């Protein structure tokens, strides 16, 4: 008995605490402790709720923000895009009608949902979190079980604070050792997806650990967990530790006083046991990872900056058709270096890399440098809180002086739902998470995913570059 209790994963423990019952079809009715909503996937769900004559069961456990459709330059309402305007108004009304906390534009706390949850202290260890957005896996960085859901499930969670779901298996992913200078969390997750494939995580939750993760800051862990879904894993998490607790201490929604100590004790106990049993284990060495960029049309099509675009004959048979499609779309030649490819747009932002530490790290290097005259470079803080902190630290000035446009908080050029879009076949060096065809708003637009510092290097040189050379990092 003791043995089984002592050898559980965090997923096992959180699942057991939140499993309401087993449904007739064998899936679990899982309690969702924290429900995050935004303007794109919630309005239809509220409509369905109304059709069924139902109410929100736990309005105090639902939190809203607006991110996908907000313009990042001219923020005056009404928005000129009438659909976008209708979407923000609908969210406002739904939150009012149901008594839901809304981090609205005038609040000073609005931002990308996956940045707002953590910075408000809403995202906590040992909890379950759902949001109608696939990058909800970000919140797993705190030792939460967090996943994206569809519209009908948003309705289910609003109405019942639960959803029907089957328990995933767990793959432990160890990364050990110290990353080389100029190599970042973004490179770690791009490397993992490259190795395991974009479907490698189907049916799995990814548990990230090892000494590299132990040493990571909370924000670095979020960058990795964010892209779990790009590897096919709906859930990705890191066991909570002192780094997690120190990040949460004092945040708006974090427990206070005696509650804090009790919470930390509980949170510690939710971490996977040392002898926990996993369905699969893979291990990587941090020293083997170099700055990584994508060359194709899915995040698994990635190479180190000094590698050549792979030949079709070098990719597995099953991936060849996609590779051919990728060469054509990206206008890249197989067997040739990706370094030196001309860049027209540089985008620094998104829920992957739009946090304060990302903006700070790049600012350290771009002082005194200038964005190439052939590049449009924009910096989009992930939230209004990130923006105001960065501004008070003088970062906005550094970026402006270097020739970046400093924007308001939102999803911006991560996807084509707001005015920030690629035009024609522009190539964008992007710190976001998806390089699908058309993702950045132009059907022929091209996206190359990379770390924030690599985006800065591309902005300055006007071509895909090795940030270590440009910024003399040894």
């Amino acid at each position: 008995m003791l043995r089984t209790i002592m050898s559980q994963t965090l997923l096992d423990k959180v699942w057991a605490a939140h499993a309401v019952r087993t449904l007739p079809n064998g899936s679990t009715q899982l309690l969702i402790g924290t429900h995050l909503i935004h303007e794109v996937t919630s309005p239809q769900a509220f409509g369905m709720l109304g059709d069924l004559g139902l109410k929100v069961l736990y309005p105090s456990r639902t939190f809203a923000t607006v991110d996908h459709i907000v313009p990042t330059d001219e923020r005056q309402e009404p928005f000129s895009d009438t659909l976008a305007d209708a979407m923000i108004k609908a969210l406002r009304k739904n939150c009012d009608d149901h008594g839901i906390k809304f981090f609205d534009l005038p609040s000073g706390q609005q931002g990308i949902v996956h940045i707002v949850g953590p910075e408000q202290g809403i995202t906590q260890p040992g909890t379950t979190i759902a949001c109608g957005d696939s990058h909800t896996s970000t919140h797993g960085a705190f030792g939460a079980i967090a996943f994206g859901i569809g519209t009908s499930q948003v309705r289910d969670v609003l109405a019942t604070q639960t959803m029907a779901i089957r328990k995933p298996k767990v793959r432990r992913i160890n990364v050990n050792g110290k990353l080389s200078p100029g190599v970042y969390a973004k490179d770690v997750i791009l490397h993992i997806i490259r190795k395991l494939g974009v479907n490698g995580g189907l049916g799995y939750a990814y548990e990230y650990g090892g000494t590299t993760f132990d040493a990571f800051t909370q924000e670095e862990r979020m960058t990795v967990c964010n892209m779990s879904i790009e590897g096919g894993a709906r859930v990705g998490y890191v066991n909570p530790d002192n780094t997690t607790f120190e990040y949460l201490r004092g945040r708006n929604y974090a427990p206070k006083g005696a509650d804090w100590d009790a919470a930390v004790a509980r949170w510690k106990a939710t971490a996977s046991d040392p002898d926990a049993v996993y369905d699969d284990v893979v291990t990587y060495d941090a020293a083997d990872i170099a700055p990584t960029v994508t060359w194709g049309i899915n995040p698994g099509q990635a190479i180190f900056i000094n590698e050549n675009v792979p030949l079709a004959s070098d990719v597995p048979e099953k991936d060849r058709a996609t590779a051919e499609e990728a060469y054509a779309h990206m206008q890249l030649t197989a067997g040739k270096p990706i370094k030196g490819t001309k860049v027209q747009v540089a985008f620094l932002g998104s829920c992957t890399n739009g946090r304060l530490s990302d903006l700070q790290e790049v600012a350290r290097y771009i002082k005194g440098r200038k964005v190439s005259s052939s590049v449009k470079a924009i910096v989009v803080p992930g939230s209004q809180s990130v923006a105001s902190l960065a501004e008070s630290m003088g970062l906005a000035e550094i970026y402006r002086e270097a020739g970046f446009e400093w924007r308001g908080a939102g999803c911006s050029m991560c996807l084509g739902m707001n005015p920030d879009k690629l035009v024609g076949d522009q190539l964008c060096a992007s710190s976001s998470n998806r390089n699908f065809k058309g993702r950045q708003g132009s059907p022929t637009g091209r996206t190359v995913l990379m770390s924030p510092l690599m985006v800065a290097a591309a902005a300055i040189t006007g071509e895909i570059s090795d940030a270590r050379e440009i910024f003399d990092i040894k």
Partner: protein
Amino acid sequence: MALEKITQTSGRGVYVPGDDLDTDRVIPARFMKCITFDGLGEFAFFDARAAAKAEGKTHPLDDARFTGASILFSGSNFGCGSSREHAPQALYRFGIRAVIAESFAEIFFGNSITLGMPCAVMSGQDIRAVAQIIESDPAALITLDLLEGKLSIADMDFPATLPVHAQEALVTGKWDAIADLLEGIEDVRTCAAKLPYMAA
């Protein structure tokens, strides 16, 4: 709250001929930037209807004789393409309450059942026979009986079936996971009360 037990659905019919009518046909992707599924009805088969108009023809869904029809008949592999929930929603909001085809794409089928919109299979021959009756008498009342697995029109019966799991889900009022989830609400409250962060 129990969901309605959907044992039969009655109404007039409309025939939209064609095989492989995909979800882009049912609702073009550009109509997905929306705040509610409510308005989607008018976009059902939007491009096909516009194309018919441009050619001086009338799409069946715009034909005044079939206005108010709630049972849609079509060909094989209906609803193939993307997984968008918008497709069955558009039909439902247009006023369709059952779709009859030779076969259905799996995801469209599942999304439709979750909506409480039965998708029943009939043979191509029978569908064409029904289509002829509708053509000559658009007011003919049609009844799809899920318990009996038959479709009746003008004193004639045709076999019209759904896979057992879907048929059962509809007739027992469990076509949507929310029915099961709502039944567990007391257990939900008990479970939530044990979690300190839910109580706060």
